[in-house]
């Protein structure tokens, strides 16, 4: 008799456990295990070897380059992302769907193709190649190229986080601000920004993690010059392919893995602390 009134919207316990179990197993094997192995391998020869890996000058240069690249690419993409999200969420204009599709382009294009695109444009035999070498500007095999590749690949993160948020919030608050006498910039800074700040931070975190970890596009553009144009992911590949530096590769890789964990932790912390505000700002 008690079974008759079981809530039919809840799966029976065995189904629930099966689904949760499969998910955990999948995530565990494909996500968690590799990350743990990275740390295990990194420390397998002891702390000395671990810290020794970071004493190498080429590795230090690679870490600096990654940090510099992210320091340029992330702010750029933040500004572009906000601008693009603003245009799409607040205005009607011809070509809006096209712009929307364009924003998603970096996600659908293989990073290697993205890298080759820039080589085609700016390489020595590229469309602008002659002009660039005439003016002694190096893009390919130098920092500008690496930054370009990174900006391209990580562009969607901020925009995609902001677009649905800004669409849900609508334009009424901004209109109200205008009627009260606020100019465009004040309206943006005092009304729009505070409403999107957590979504923006979210997007920036993801953009940063990806910017630091980008391999494919940067690999095509960097030229792999040790100590000069190797970012961390490229340096890791280099070390990994060198039989004598196997552990060093994992040591450096563990840094990137750590970055991944920190990003996730921050993201979850944001959700936990400001989840209510995030939901409220979405217009509920």
């Amino acid at each position, binding site marked *: 008799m008690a079974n008759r009134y079981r809530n039919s919207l809840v799966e029976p316990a065995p189904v629930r456990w099966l689904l949760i179990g499969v998910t955990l197993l999948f995530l565990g094997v494909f996500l968690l295990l590799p990350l743990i192995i990275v740390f295990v391998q990194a420390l397998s020869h002891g702390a000395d070897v671990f810290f020794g890996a970071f004493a190498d000058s080429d590795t230090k240069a690679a870490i600096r380059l990654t940090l510099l690249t992210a320091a340029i690419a992330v702010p750029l993409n933040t500004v572009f992302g906000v601008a693009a999200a603003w245009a799409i969420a607040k205005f009607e204009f011809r070509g809006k769907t096209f712009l929307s599709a364009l924003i998603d382009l970096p996600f659908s294009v293989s990073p290697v193709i993205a890298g080759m695109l820039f080589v085609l444009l700016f390489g020595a035999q590229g469309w602008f190649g002659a002009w660039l070498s005439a003016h002694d500007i190096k893009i390919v095999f130098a920092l500008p190229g690496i930054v370009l590749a990174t900006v391209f690949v990580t562009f969607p993160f901020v925009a995609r986080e902001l677009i649905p948020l800004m669409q849900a919030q609508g334009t*009424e608050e901004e209109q*109200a601000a205008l*009627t*009260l*006498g606020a100019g465009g910039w*004040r309206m943006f800074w*005092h009304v729009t920004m505070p409403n999107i700040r957590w979504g923006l931070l979210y997007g920036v975190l993801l953009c940063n993690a990806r910017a630091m970890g980008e391999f494919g596009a940067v690999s095509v553009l960097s030229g792999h010059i040790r100590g000069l144009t190797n970012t961390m992911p490229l340096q890791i590949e280099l070390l990994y392919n060198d039989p004598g530096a196997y552990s060093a590769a994992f040591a450096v890789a563990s840094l990137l893995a750590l970055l991944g964990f920190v990003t996730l932790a921050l993201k979850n912390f944001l959700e936990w602390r400001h989840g209510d505000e995030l939901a*409220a700002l979405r217009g509920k």
Partner: protein
Amino acid sequence: MDISIRNLGKNYGNVTALRDIRLDIASGELIALLGASGSGKTTLLRAIAGLESIDDGSIRFGDIDATRLSVQERRVGFVFQHYALFKHMNVLDNVTFGLRVRKRSTRPRSAEIRRRGLELLDLVQLKGLEERFPTQLSGGQRQRVALARALAIEPRVLLLDEPFGALDAKVRKELRAWLRQLHDEIGYTTIFVTHDESEAHELADRVVTMADGRIEEAGAAN
């Protein structure tokens, strides 16, 4: 401030939203724009505010030709159906926003801004709620904050877009009476949009009926 509108026209592509609108509103009048959805009443209100552009015609506030003025320059007080309060600011900051974004040269001192804000809150009977946030208020309270916010800039004209549409019947009746009383007290030229005929006749000095982008009846004084 009296308002005069001549030959106002607005199109959205092929659709004519407003046709050859001619309207005169005397200073201090409380006018209702009454009509069904699609009659153009909200478009007209927003055009007066400058939130919509117009294709033909002119709008004057007193001696000033407002047709080419930006939203900010027109200094209209606008109250939205869904309040449009700034969610992340408390009530006092909402109300004083219009004063705080003024240029240095015309901005009152902070103490004066605060005083005016509190005074307005008192006027709309929300004394003591200045530290609250919009999400902590009821619909009726939010709309009164929105009204105080619009009044803070000492607007040339007060425009209300179905101000009680999002509220339940009882609150609607209360606020109607309260708005009429407030208008009698402070006397701003006011235009409000509604689709509710009884509300229009109860509140307004004059009811202007619209249909199909045109004014059907400019209304006689109540």
